[in-house]
C-alpha cells in the first residue's frame, strides 16, 4: 500500500484571512419568514468594505429574499442589519442608501435614459449643474454616450442593463445590491458584462452584494461567496475556498461537478487524517466535525488525468477503470469511468490534442494534493 500526503494549506486559498477587513455591511441572525416557511433562517455575515460579495444558491433558496431584506423591501422577523456601524433595519427603504439593480432592470419606461439616471439625484435635490456633471460622468463611465435622449424601450438588453447600473451608481450608494442582473442577457454578452461589472466595482471600490444562481458567474466575479440553501448560509469564503474546500456534499455538488466516495479514516491526528482509498493510504487535512472513522473523499473531474497507462512515477494515485460513457463538450471531453461500484466523472482538457478518444480500460491518475475530505454527517 502506497502512502501519499495531500493538501498543503499554503498552496490554496487562505481561509484564515476571511473577514480581517472591517465589516462594512453586517447581518446579525437575520430571520425572514413568510407564514410558516423561513425564507431567511438565522443568517449572519460580515461583508468587508469595498468587496464584491455574492449570495449564491439554487432558485428558491432565499438569496433574493435576503437581498430584499437588506434593501428594506421586506421586514426581517428577527436580527439586525448594520451598515457602517449604523443600524439600518429600522429605516424605511428609501433612507438606507442601498441602491439596487433589478433582474428585469426596472427602468422607468416613461423617462429618457438621462432622466432615469438623474432620478436619484433629483430626489436628493442636487443642483442642476452638479446633476448634469454627475449624470454625464456616469454615462461615460458605463459607456452610454450618445444614448441619453433615448427611451428605455429603444435600447438593447445590454444597454438597458448599463442604464440600470448607472442609475444606481450615480447616487453613490453605500452598498450596491444586484439581483441576478445578468440573467436576462444572452451568453456572450453575459460573459462580457461579468468583466465589466467586476472592473467597475474595483475602480469605484463600492461594496457590491450580488445575487446569482450561476456558480461560474459567482466564481469569476466575487471576492467572497456565501452559498445559501433553505435560507441558511452553507459556506462563506473566497471562490477558491468554496470550490476546492466544499464543506458538505451539497456544496461539492452545487458548485461544479464532484466525485464523492466514502472512505475509512484509520488515523486522526488533527490537523491531518489518514484514510484508506483503494490501495492507497492518504494523509489529508482532517475534515471539520463529522463521524470519527468515516469521511467523503472529494475530487473535481478536472483534477483527474485519464490515461491509457498506469502512472509510473508513483507520486499519483493510479486506479484502473472502464469507460462507460463519454460526451464531447467542446472545451473538454467528459468521461464516465466505472471503478468498482462507483462511476467517476473525468474531464479531459483540450480533447482535440487526442484524436482517438479513450475507450475500454483506462487509468485514472490523481495528485493527492487535489483530493479533499468532507465530513460524513453523524
Amino acid at each position: 500500500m502506497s502512502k501519499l500526503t495531500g493538501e498543503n494549506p499554503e498552496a490554496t486559498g487562505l481561509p484564515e484571512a476571511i473577514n480581517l477587513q472591517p465589516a462594512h455591511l453586517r447581518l446579525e441572525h437575520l430571520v425572514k419568514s413568510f407564514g410558516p416557511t423561513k425564507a431567511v433562517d438565522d443568517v449572519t455575515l460580515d461583508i468587508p468594505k469595498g468587496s464584491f460579495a455574492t449570495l449564491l444558491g439554487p432558485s428558491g433558496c432565499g438569496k433574493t429574499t435576503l437581498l430584499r431584506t437588506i434593501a428594506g423591501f421586506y421586514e426581517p422577523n428577527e436580527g439586525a442589519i448594520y451598515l457602517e456601524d449604523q443600524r439600518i433595519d429600522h429605516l424605511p427603504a428609501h433612507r438606507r442608501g442601498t441602491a439596487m439593480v433589478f433582474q428585469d432592470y426596472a427602468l422607468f419606461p416613461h423617462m429618457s435614459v438621462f432622466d432615469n439616471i438623474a432620478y436619484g439625484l433629483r430626489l436628493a435635490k442636487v443642483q442642476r449643474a452638479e446633476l448634469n456633471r454627475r449624470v454625464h460622468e456616469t454615462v461615460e463611465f458605463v459607456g452610454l454616450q450618445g444614448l441619453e435622449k433615448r427611451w428605455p424601450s429603444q435600447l438593447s438588453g445590454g444597454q438597458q442593463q448599463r442604464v440600470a447600473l448607472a442609475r444606481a451608481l450615480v447616487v453613490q450608494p453605500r452598498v450596491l445590491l444586484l439581483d441576478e442582473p445578468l440573467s436576462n442577457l444572452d451568453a456572450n454578452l453575459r460573459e462580457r458584462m461579468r468583466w465589466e461589472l467586476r472592473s467597475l466595482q474595483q475602480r469605484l471600490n463600492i461594496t457590491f452584494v450580488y445575487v446569482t444562481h450561476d456558480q461560474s458567474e459567482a466564481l469569476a466575479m466575487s471576492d467572497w461567496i456565501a452559498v445559501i440553501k433553505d435560507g441558511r448560509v452553507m459556506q462563506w469564503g473566497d471562490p477558491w475556498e468554496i470550490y476546492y474546500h466544499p464543506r458538505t456534499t451539497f456544496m461539492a455538488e452545487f458548485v461544479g461537478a464532484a466525485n464523492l466516495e466514502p472512505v475509512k479514516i484509520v488515523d486522526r491526528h488533527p490537523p491531518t487524517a489518514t484514510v484508506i482509498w483503494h490501495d492507497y493510504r492518504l494523509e489529508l487535512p482532517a475534515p471539520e466535525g463529522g463521524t470519527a472513522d468515516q469521511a467523503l473523499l472529494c475530487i473535481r473531474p478536472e483534477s483527474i488525468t485519464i490515461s491509457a497507462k498506469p502512472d509510473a512515477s508513483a507520486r499519483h494515485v493510479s486506479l484502473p477503470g472502464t469507460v462507460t460513457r463519454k460526451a464531447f463538450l467542446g472545451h473538454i471531453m467528459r468521461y464516465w469511468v466505472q471503478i468498482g461500484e462507483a462511476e467517476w466523472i473525468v474531464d479531459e482538457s483540450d480533447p482535440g490534442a487526442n484524436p482517438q478518444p479513450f475507450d475500454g480500460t483506462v487509468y485514472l491518475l490523481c495528485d493527492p494534493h487535489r483530493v479533499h475530505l468532507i465530513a460524513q454527517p453523524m
Partner: protein
Amino acid sequence: MKTLTREPMLGLTLLILVALMFSFILYPQIQVVLVPGLKGYFAFFAEGMWVKPLVNSLEAMVLSTTTAVILGFLYAYAMIYSDMPGKPFFRLIGMLPLLSPPFVVAASYILLFGPRGLISYRLLGQSWNVLGLGGLWGVQTIAYFPFAYQLIADVLARSDPRMEQAARNLGAGPWQVFRTVTLPLARPGLASAILITAIYILEDFGNPALIAGRFTVLPTQAYGLVSGFGDFVGAAAVSTILLVLALVLYLGHLRLEGSRSFVTVSGKASSMPRPPVPRLVTWGAFTICAILSGVILMVYGVLVLSALTKAFPANWTFTLEHFDYVRVHSLSLRNTLVYGCTAATLCSLYSVLLAFLVQRKEWPGRRIIDFLAIMPAAVPGIFFGIGYATAFNQRWLDWLDRGVLIIISMIFWNIPVAYRAAMAGLAQIDSSIDEAATSLGASSLRGFRDILFPLLREPMLTGLGTAFVRVVTTLSVVIFLFTPSTTLATITIFQLVNDFNWGGATAFTVAVIGMAIAVLGVIWFITGRRAIMTHSIGG
C-alpha cells in the same frame, strides 16, 4: 404595517382614504338597514306587501337575464370568433347603448309599440296595452344585452387562442373545439358575466318605472313608497331586500372571479389568430349581428326622429322646436356635465391611490377595504340613493350644497369601476419599478407620484370615462338626492317622459348622448386613442 408607521405621510393618507370610505360607503348603507328598526321590519314583513314585488323582480330578472345573455353571447361570439365583415361598425353600435340611460329603451318602445306607436298603431292599426311584464321583458332584453355582450366579449377575448390552435392541431373539428375547449375555459367567466347582468337587471329602476305599469318590482316599490307616501321606513326595508339579493349574486360573481384566474392563461392578448370558423357560422354571425344592431339603431333612430318631428309618429313635420327644452332645462344638462366631470375625476384619483395602497403595501384590514371598494357595485342604485338621503339629508348638514352631496355619492358609487381599472393597471406594472424608485431614495408617495401615477394614466382615464358615463346615465341613485337647483339630465328626461312630452324627452336624450360622446371624445383624444371605457362593474 411597520412600513406605514415608518412613513407617517403614507399612514396618514391611508387613514384619510379609509375614513372617507367608512363615511360614504359603509355609513349610509348601515343607516338604511337600521332605519326600519326591529319593530319596523316585523311590521313590514307581517304586512306582506313586499311579496308580490319580490316575486315580480325575480321573475323579470330571470326572464330578461336569460334573453339578454343569449343575445349578448351570440353578439360576442360573432365579434371575437368569426371573421365576418363590418366588425368595427358592429363594435360601435354595441357601445352606443352604454352611453345613454337604459330607460330610454322603454321610451323608444312606447313610441314604437305603444297604444299610438309607429308600428302597432300606424302600421298595424292596433292599440296594444304594452305595460306589464311582457313589455318589461322585451325592453330589458334590448337595454341590457349590450352590457352582457361587453362582459362576455371580454371573457372570450381573454381566452388563449393557442389552446384552440392546439386542439385543432390534435384533430378536433370546430364544433368539438368550441364544446371541449372554448366553452369550458370560458365557463366561470360566462357565469360571472351572467351574474353581473342579473344584478344590472335586478337594480333597473327606469325601465320598470316607465313600462311595467302595475307590475311592481322592488326598486319601483321603494320609489313609490317614498314619493307617494313619504314612507322612508318601508322604502328602506324594500331596498334592503334588494340589497341582499344583489349581494348574493355579487358574492357568487366574486367567487367565480377568484377561480377564473386558474383558467384564463394570461392577461396579455396573444398575437396568434384564432382558428377559422366555418363559412356558415361566419354568415350566421353576420346575420345575427346585423339584426341586433338593426334593433339598436331602430331604438335610437326612433328617438332622433321623435326629437326632430312635430308629434311623432302622428305628425312627421320636421322641427327643431323640441330642442327648446334643452335650453329650458340647460341647468340639468350643465349640472350633469359639472357633477359628472368632477365626480369622475375625483373618483379615479381616489381609486388609483387606494389601489396603490391595497396592492403595494401591507397593512391589517387590507382585505376588508378591498372588499368595501368593490362592494358598491353590488349596491342597487335605489338603495345607495336612499342611504345618502337618510344619512346626509340632515338638519346639521344644511349648510352643505346638495350638489356636493350628489358629487360625493357619484364618487363613491363609481369607485368599483375606477378601482378595478386601477388594480388591473397596477398588476401590469412590475413592483420592481416602484422598488427601484424607493431604492434610489424616493418615499412611497413620491415614488407613486413620479413613477406609478404617470404609468397608470391609461387605466385612470378608463375609470374616469366609465365613471362619467355612469353619472350621465344613472337615475336611481340621484332620484332621492336632487333639488330643483341640483337636478340632473336623467331626472329631466324621466320627468318629461312622465309628462308624455315625447318630443322634449327625446330631444333632451339626444343632447345628453351628444354630450357624453363629446366628453368621451376628449378623453379618447387625451389617452392617445385607446379604449376609454370598461363596460363592466365586474370585469
